[in-house]
């Protein structure tokens, strides 16, 4: 494996030394471009109390292209499909090399707090969400409890 760019080393160090509340990102030992990520659901959202596991991978041309991020924990969200893929502009066209791992993870956390059913990835969820938002939120809460409660992660 090619030497790890200084930028990645620096970012990793800062994630450890100056962690974002509610977010942890730890590189895997076998591949330092591969991160194990946990994001706590925002308190004001249906995902509150959830402890979501994600994986993040930094491609070779990072930071010129976006990191690849995917939910591992099942989640009921209009912008996250059942494979855990995330529909988020900064992960796609709006990526900027000035963004970092921490900014991306914060964006994802924000996405949990503000689901956007008008730009859906999981169409069925988005439809439910539009039809009956209250019920959808309940489903999200129950999924969070079922799949993302902190105890399950142990």
């Amino acid at each position, binding site marked *: 494996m090619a030497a790890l*760019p*200084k*930028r990645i080393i*620096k*970012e990793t160090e800062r994630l450890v030394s*100056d962690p*974002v509340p509610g977010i942890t990102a730890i590189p895997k030992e076998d591949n330092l471009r591969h991160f194990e990520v946990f994001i706590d659901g925002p308190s004001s959202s249906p995902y509150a109390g959830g402890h979501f596991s994600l994986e993040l991978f930094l491609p070779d041309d990072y*930071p*010129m292209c976006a990191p690849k991020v995917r939910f591992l924990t099942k989640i009921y969200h209009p912008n996250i499909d059942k494979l855990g893929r995330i529909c988020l502009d900064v992960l796609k066209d709006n990526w*900027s*090399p*000035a*963004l*970092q791992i*921490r*900014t991306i993870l*914060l964006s994802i956390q924000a996405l949990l707090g503000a689901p956007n059913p008008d730009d859906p990835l999981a169409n069925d969820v988005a439809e439910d969400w539009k039809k009956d938002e209250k019920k959808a939120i309940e489903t999200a809460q129950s999924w969070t409890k079922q799949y993302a409660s902190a105890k399950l992660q142990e």
Partner: protein
Amino acid sequence: MPENTRDVLNPPARVISSSAKRTKSTTPPPLSSPPTSYPSSPITETLTSNDIQNNSQAPSGSINRAITRNDSQSSLNNSSNSSIPVNSNSTHASNNNTNASNILSSSPSQPPQPPNVTRRSSFGLNFLSSFTNSIRTGHPPSPTENPHSFMSNSPTIANLSSFATLEDELIAPNGNSRGHQPRSRRNSSRQSNRLSNSQGPHSNGHGADHPITQQESPSSNNAFDESHDQVTTPNGIVENNGARDGRNDSISNGIDKDGFYSVRLTPLIDHSSSASGLYFSPVIRKIKPSSNISIGRYTEKNKAAAHAPQGSSAPIVFKSKVVSRTHALFQCNEDGQWFLRDCKSSSGTFLNHIRLSPASQESTLMPLIDGDIIQLGMDYRGGTEEVYRCVKMRCEFNKSWQRKVNQFNLEIHKKLKNLQINNEDNEDSRLVTNPITGSSTNVDDLAECAICLMKIEPCQALFISPCSHAWHYKCIRPIIIKSYPQFYCPNCRTMCDLETDLDEDD
């Protein structure tokens, strides 16, 4: 004016004018300015005849570098016997015209032939510093000093000549007339105009002083002779010698504080030509005076040299098969003058495109100046494969001081930082100075390149976008070239047009 004085006066003048002639052929000769414009001239006849002589000589002395090199070689050889003491001027002076013309038509073996002595780097600042020294000490640099600068192939020639006139002007008021004759003979019309306008009437009067002051230069200015002095008495002390100060200063500038001389080799890259040489990262080597450093092919044995830190004294190695294992060597003498020798390389060493020696034959030591282009070997099999490419490089000698952080770039950097801070105040910093990066203070944040996250520091190549964000040029380049001339700022997402007219209005 008595005829005697004239006689005494003339020989040196002629010697100088010979070098001035050389100068002329390197500088774009402005107009046909009459060397005979010499004021009050009972001797104009002799002068002109000499001038003709000069003219015939000039091209060979100046343009042909090979000859110059030979001269310097021979003067190296002669350095032992060449030192005519500075104060023996009077005898020399009284040797009258014939002697002078001998000097003119001289073979290189004649010791007091200053202009050829070293190929001197003519970096403008050096000249300036010698210039300021001359003002400070009240001694103008020796008249031959300037022609020396002109000798080189530097692009700053034009600057130099204008400095030269300036210098002459400044010297004159001191009543030190040393500058007069060389100036008038330097033959640029501008200068001779200046002479006739402002100095002409006086020059006779000053002429009486000439014999002594002027004699110094032709007789003493053997570079090696002189440079030895410089080593023993660096910088300030030597300045008292008047005739020597400028040169010495410029040379001693090159030595590092730790007493090393440095060479930096950068690959000669020409994107317009398909046949570029081997690419290598710039190499910096430093050696003690009077030592040398070998250039050769990378082998298992000298592996360490390939990874030697910049500024070490390790051999210089290249990963090209057209480079012999011991291909050439750099040598640096006591005075920081660098030389190049081909050490029986099989595919040749080229200095400014001229091969130094046939295959497997050792060349003589060739003096080098800053900016010389050296090529090791020739492309083999069309140079399509990297390992069969020749090595083309540009050399910088004794210029490490130029790359050091100094007051100037520190100040500029400070200003740049301020610019960014001010800018940040007004700006919607939604992206970069998000809560996240915003955790550090703005100032720190902006001292950092958003792409590599390393600090932005003096002496780094930067790119500053119209929105006043800055990155290392190396970091931002892929983004710039991807959509040039449109530039989408990764920090603030402003779309900038890099081809906007640079008109001053607005």
